[in-house]
Structure formats: C-alpha cells, structure tokens
C-alpha cells in the first residue's frame, strides 16, 4: 500500500482544512477512504455499531492535489480505508490556512500513520519551516469495507433549497434550548417550516420562496401528527421529525464556502442535507426521523 499527495494552492488548502474541521465537530471518529478519483470522509453513528454512515463527504482529488499517487493492496482492492480520531486530523490541518504546501503520505512508524508535512512561511525571514505531524491511523480491514459504502437511501419525496445556514442555525439553536426535537416541514410551494412543540410553547419559523428541486408527491398523511393548515394542500407537504442537536450540528458546516445546500426529505423517515461547493465537494448528512 502506498499513498502520497501534495497540495500547493492556498484556496483548496483552506477549503480542505474547513472540511476536516467541520467533520471533526460532527464526529469523534471518521474513516478516510482514498480512491483513484475521489477521497471520501465517512462517519458512522458513534454509538450504534455497524450502521450505514450518517455523514458522507466526497472530495474530487484533482481539484485539491497537484500530485496524487495511490497504490492499494492489489488490483482488486485499489482503495485504502483509514480510520482516525477526527480531532487528531483536524488540529494539525488548522495550520493549513497560512501554509505554503502540504504533503500527505502513508507511513509505518510504531503504528500506521498518515504523515502530514506542512511547509509554513516564516514572518521574519524568507526561509520556511517544515512541520511534520504523524497521525496514528487504523487501516480498515477489507472485510468491513462494506460498512462504509455510500448509503442507499430511498428516493426523497421532496428536495428543497435551504436558506443561509447561519440564519437557520441561530433559530434551531434557540429552539434546541426549549425542545429536543424539531419537526421539519417542506411544501412543494417552496415553504419550509421548523417547528417545536412543548408544554410551554409552540414555536414555528417559516421560510417561503425557496427553490424546490424535485417533488415526488402526493404525500399520504394518515395520522393525527400532522396538523392541517389553512390554505395548504396537505398532499403537497412533506414532514419529518428529527433530533434538534443533530440538525444543529450539521448546520455548523456553514464555514465551508458552499454554493448550495439541499434538504431532501423522505416523508417521516429521513432528512438528507447535502452541501455542494464550487470545487465539487459534496457533503451529505443523513438524519433519521423520530417516529412516536
């Protein structure tokens, strides 16, 4: 197995640092999958064994790296899967924001390591400093690779563009202090409602005029949980109740400069938040619905 990659442009380096920082906020551990065209960050649910990933991030290597060499175990298994403590990876990469170059390679020290060689400019002299970080990694054995496949999700009932994340997150964070779960409601008319209900209060934040990408309605509402609203055709409204904390965590991804964020909902079952950047990085987060 061999891996070596070099990054020399400041833009992508900053971007890469932001992505890894965001991932470290969302998870304790993550898996880095290296393949010929893409690198992936994959996060599984911390406390529930082998489940489909809850976070899936794909980064096209050619947009970020000027050099990229990868040799897998054999021809059948060209990829390399490495497990990390997310924070270990994020902390050294923070310095990338002011770095000149980054070299990454897979090394064998006491344990397998991902070695980062960061070249930092010096503020006082034209010479540069070289900082080397060895980040211990676990090489994920081939037999459990299947745990880290892209999640197969049912076709969403609706995909709607989200308003600016920061704005959304402020509201969710206020709601989070009052209730543990939030009901997301999206309509084919481009309305998005976030609602909490407790004994003390019922708070709904409503957005309108959002772009709807796809709508696969009509939606069947067969129970009492969805309250009817005046002037709204229920068959065109999709609902899912999710954990407020998880939602808020994903929304902290706003520091990655993105061009659009789509929220897809499988009625009452799943919310998929997907962030895309200009460099074709795709970060997806899967939040399963809570059903009472």
């Amino acid at each position: 197995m061999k891996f070596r990659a070099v990054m020399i442009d400041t833009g992508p380096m900053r971007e890469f640092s932001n992505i890894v920082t965001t991932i470290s906020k969302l998870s304790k551990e993550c898996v880095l999958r290296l393949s010929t065209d893409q690198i992936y960050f994959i996060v599984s649910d911390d406390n529930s064994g082998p489940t489909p990933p809850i976070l899936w991030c794909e980064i096209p290597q050619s947009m970020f790296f000027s050099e990229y060499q990868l040799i897998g175990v054999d021809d059948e298994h060209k990829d390399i899967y490495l497990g990390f403590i997310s924070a270990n990876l994020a902390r050294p990469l923070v310095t990338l924001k002011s770095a000149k170059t980054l070299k990454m390679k897979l090394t064998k020290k006491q344990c397998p390591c991902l070695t980062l060689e960061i070249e930092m400019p010096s503020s006082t002299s034209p010479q540069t400093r070289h900082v080397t970080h060895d980040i211990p990694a676990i090489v994920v054995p081939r037999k459990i690779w299947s745990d880290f496949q892209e999640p197969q999700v049912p076709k969403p009932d609706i995909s709607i563009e989200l308003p600016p994340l920061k704005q959304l997150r402020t509201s969710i964070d206020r709601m989070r202090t009052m209730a543990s779960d939030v009901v997301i409601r999206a309509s084919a008319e481009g309305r998005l409602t976030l609602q909490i209900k407790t004994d003390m209060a019922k708070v709904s934040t409503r957005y309108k005029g959002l772009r709807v990408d796809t709508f696969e309605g009509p939606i069947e509402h067969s129970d009492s949980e969805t309250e009817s609203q005046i002037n709204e055709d229920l068959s065109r409204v999709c609902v899912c109740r999710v954990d407020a904390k998880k939602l808020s965590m994903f929304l902290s991804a706003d520091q990655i400069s993105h061009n659009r964020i789509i929220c897809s909902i499988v009625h009452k079952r799943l919310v998929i938040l997907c962030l895309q950047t200009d460099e074709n990085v795709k970060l997806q987060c899967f939040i399963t619905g809570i059903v009472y």
Partner: protein
Amino acid sequence: MESGKTLCSLLKAIQFQECAVFCAMPEGLKLTVEEGKCVQASAYIPADNFTEYHVRDEVDVMFKISIAVLAECLNIFGSGEESSLKMYYRCEGSPLLLVLQPQSVHNVMTDCEISTQTADSLLDLRDEDAEEVAKLILKAPAFLGLLVDLERSCDVLELNLSPEHPNVSIVTYGMQDRSCIDVPKSSDMVQSFSCEEPITLKYQLHHIRLIMKALALSTKVVLRFSSNGLLLLQLKLEKEDQKQMFSEFYIVPLLDD
C-alpha cells in the same frame, strides 16, 4: 414594535426565576419576577415603545409566563438581528402569540404560541406609611464597577448613609476581613444625594447582585431608601432612540439579630 432586541435584553436582566408575571396596562407592559419574598424585580416597557398598543380597559391582562421561553423566542433570529415584533393575547387561558420578522431578510417569519398560566398574587412591598429617608442617583456603569469589586464570599452588605462626610459607605464583612468603600457626594458617580439623618441598613449581598445584569444595560440608577429599610432601585435603560424602558428592584433589608 420595531425591534424586540432591547426588550429581550431587559428580560434577560431580570431572568433569575423561571416564571414572570406579565401584566399589560394602558400605560405599558410590566413583567415582574420575585425571588423568595425578598426581592421583586420588574421590567417596564411604556406604551410609546410600541408602534401600536391596545389594551381593552374592561379586562385585567395579567398572567404568568416562562421568562426563559419568552426570551428565547424573542431572540429566535439571534442577537445580531433586529426583528420586528407583534404580540397578541386574547383572554385568560389563551396563549401569548408572538410574530417576529427579521428586518434584513424578507422570506422568513416566526410565530410563537407561549402558554400562559393564571398569575399568582404579587407581593406588595410598598408601604404607604414608610416615608423616603434617603435618595441617591448614581451613574449605572460606575455603580456596577463598584459592585463587581465587592468580595464574592461575603453574605452581607452594610450601607451607611449620612449627611456628613463620607456620605455613603459600603461595608462588607468577609471571613477575615472587613472592607469598606466610601463614596462622598462630590464623587463623579453621584449625580444627586439627599439624606437628612444618618442611617445604617443591611442587605443580602446575593440580592444586590441580582441587579447587576440590569445595571450593565442602564445609564442611571436611582436608589430610594424608605424608613422601614426597603430599598427601591430604579434603573433607566440605555437606548438609541428617545423612547425609554425601565427596570425596578425592591429589596427587603436584613434585620438586626
């Protein structure tokens, strides 16, 4: 109301209990919080702070509400955002409705229904027979600085007021020490001082500390001492426009052992 921001910070300043009594009068809104039977804090929002304000005169609009929830709702778009606010309340038992709309973004609004409860009776700490024996007007930031400097571990704060120099002295007793701050009436922070007879009063320092958040928002504080020792603090809120908001604290004194 054009912006709910000041209201929200005013509420947070008196948020030392879960619930407040919300009272709407023709002159304006009043929210009151009590700590034990010893401190009563109120926030006043005179009607002219609202662009529109109606109260039906034949009904008493008075109910209990969670002040934490109310503050969170007012702050739903974050503290950096000025948002316009509408408030509605129908009758006893119905929720308080809020509609908030941020000024910079137009495609979003929040509506809140906050459940209300029947109000408990509030303490009437004012005693008509007790006359005012001393009055002090101070600059709020300076007074706050003074309170911050007081030793945290002390329980009791002693206030000595007298017409003679040093006019005001604040004494705290700690485990090993006694510290004293003198404020003569010539001091910059004193805007007005009136006191006929020397008096000594003791208060729970913990109670005095409750006003600190409100002090941080205010420009001016009036301290009124009545002959039964009750301390009334009236604070004027700092605001950009000409409209005023107030908070008021009644603090019951400690009796000598």
